[in-house]
């Protein structure tokens, strides 16, 4: 962290926080139990020494499969979970010691359709959170109207949330997270389950946040989303960060190889395993596409493995075969598979 120049909200004007969000060796362990009569206590390490920093005005992506530790990391940063060890700071303040200070200056949006008062209208939800976040009563109505306009819920604000579609709920979440105009915003899979048009509109809203000077931490499963929005990305797998850099840098990690895509019908796991063991194969993923599957095989540079791949699929009905340049998704798959 260094100082000088302009500042985000709530920070003395002569102080400029370069790293708005900092995680240093963050760890989080959960205790759980198994069994009914003979109960056994287990410790699950959800986050294992995660470190990263986010600069002012940056849109930073945290990518990882389900259970990788993304949400746990975000929950520690937004003061909902206390780290087992390590440190986290937002705008230079410790998230455990100065929880209230941090809470006043952050906004967060969780994906999914929960987290709203179902029996109340969108307007009531926003009014309640506006009071909880100390939004000035005089400007409250105008701020709520502005946000309803931003997220496209103007005209629907008096309807009960229980009748809202998933996309509408998600947009209401974003409005709620921005009520107090926080300089730092945490978005945990904000477009999950939203239809393509709605997701595109949400992405435009997210992009506008950094355009207005906010610092954003975004988690998503959608690689194209991260590629399009994020300035930098950290890939997290099994609670550890396995790569960090700009989308271009991450892609460069696998750019020297190539990708072979094979359409198959009813491929078995043992055939996929055989492909994974093939010399020169970096990663294999299977995507289900109605009656068929798409095998995505990442290969090392300078190797022509199409023939070898097909020979491992002996007995499997094969459709279209093609090869292409690696994408960010391929980089992500390679990183997560290797972890």
């Amino acid at each position, binding site marked *: 962290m260094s100082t000088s120049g302009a500042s985000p909200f709530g920070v003395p004007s002569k102080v400029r926080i370069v790293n708005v969000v900092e995680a240093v060796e963050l760890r989080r362990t959960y205790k759980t139990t198994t069994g009914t009569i003979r109960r056994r206590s287990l410790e699950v390490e959800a986050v294992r020494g995660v470190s990263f920093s986010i600069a002012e005005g940056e849109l930073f992506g945290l990518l990882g499969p389900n259970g990788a530790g993304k949400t746990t990391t975000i929950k520690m940063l937004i*003061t*909902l979970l206390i780290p087992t060890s390590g440190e986290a700071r937002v705008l230079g303040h410790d998230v455990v010691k100065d929880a*209230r200070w941090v809470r006043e200056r952050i906004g967060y949006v969780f994906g999914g359709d*929960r987290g*709203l*008062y179902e*029996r*109340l209208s969108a307007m009531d939800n926003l009014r309640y959170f506006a*009071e909880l976040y100390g939004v000035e009563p005089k400007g409250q109505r105008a701020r709520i109207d502005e946000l309803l306009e931003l997220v496209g819920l103007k005209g629907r604000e008096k309807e009960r949330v229980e009748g809202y579609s998933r996309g509408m709920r998600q947009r209401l979440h974003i409005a709620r997270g921005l009520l107090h105009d926080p300089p730092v915003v945490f978005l945990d899979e904000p477009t999950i389950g939203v239809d393509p048009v709605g997701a595109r509109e949400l992405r435009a809203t997210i992009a506008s946040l950094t355009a207005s000077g906010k610092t954003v931490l975004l988690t998503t499963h959608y690689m194209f989303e991260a590629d399009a929005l994020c300035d930098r990305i950290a890939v997290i797998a099994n609670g550890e960060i396995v790569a960090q850099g700009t989308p271009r840098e991450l892609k460069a990690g696998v750019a020297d190889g190539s990708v072979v895509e094979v359409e198959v019908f009813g491929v078995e796991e043992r055939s996929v395993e055989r492909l994974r063991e093939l010399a020169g194969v970096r990663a294999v993923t299977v995507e289900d596409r109605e009656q068929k599957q798409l095998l995505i095989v990442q290969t090392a540079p300078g190797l022509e493995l199409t023939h070898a791949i097909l020979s491992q699929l002996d007995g499997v009905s094969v459709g279209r075969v093609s090869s292409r340049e690696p994408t960010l998704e391929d980089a992500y798959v390679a990183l997560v598979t290797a972890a």
Partner: protein
Amino acid sequence: MLQALRVIRIGWLLQLKTMARSGFDILTVIVTPITYASIAFFLYRRGGGAETLLWVSLGAAFMGLWASTLWGAGNNIQRQRSQQTLEFAIAAPTPFLVSLIGTSLASSTVGLYSLVATLAWGRLLFDVPLELEHPILFALSLPAAVLSLALLGIVMAATLILYRYAWALANMLEYPVWLAAGLLAPIALLPGWVHPISYALAPTWGAKAVRESVLGGSPLIAIGVCLALAAIYLVIGFFFVQNFERLARQRATLALS
């Protein structure tokens, strides 16, 4: 301070709105006090005179008030946890205790209906007389009782922040408190070891204040104890919320998953 009052006001208003929009909540609120009142009247009408019936009637009203407070306190946190708003409310900069006060007051306010319904039910069906000995003190005793019950509700709700299944324990407290607070039978009939528990409970003093303002006596003392207990519950509630919230963040019990 003004900000806290605004949060309490909107929390109270929106909790009432939430309850008014649930058929189940409305049914519970309407039917429960009438059922309690009927049971109490049938128990006492053979042996008791008019004054005894009014005494019992006010006790039954407090049974409804206590049930509403207890149910509201438990249900509010459980509902917030299941609809995943608990984390959002706790991670807001306003201390969670303040938002709890608003929602708990709403449950006790709804419980006031049980007082009106019980007295009206007794008057219409069981000829229970309704004459107020101290009308002004009666008007004072009601908000004092509601406040003390609401703040006792907060103490119970605070435990639910940490313990996900504490609502089951909270529900079990409904009947013992009826007995301990002397709502159906005088405290003097209870064993001596129960008395300290009785005197620590808001329903004991709330019912005493209301009964003495209706039937005659010195309700000011009971009103004063209600307010003193409210202050004590507030301090305990503050301590509980503060510590249980921190422990819940340590143990990750705020969310369901």
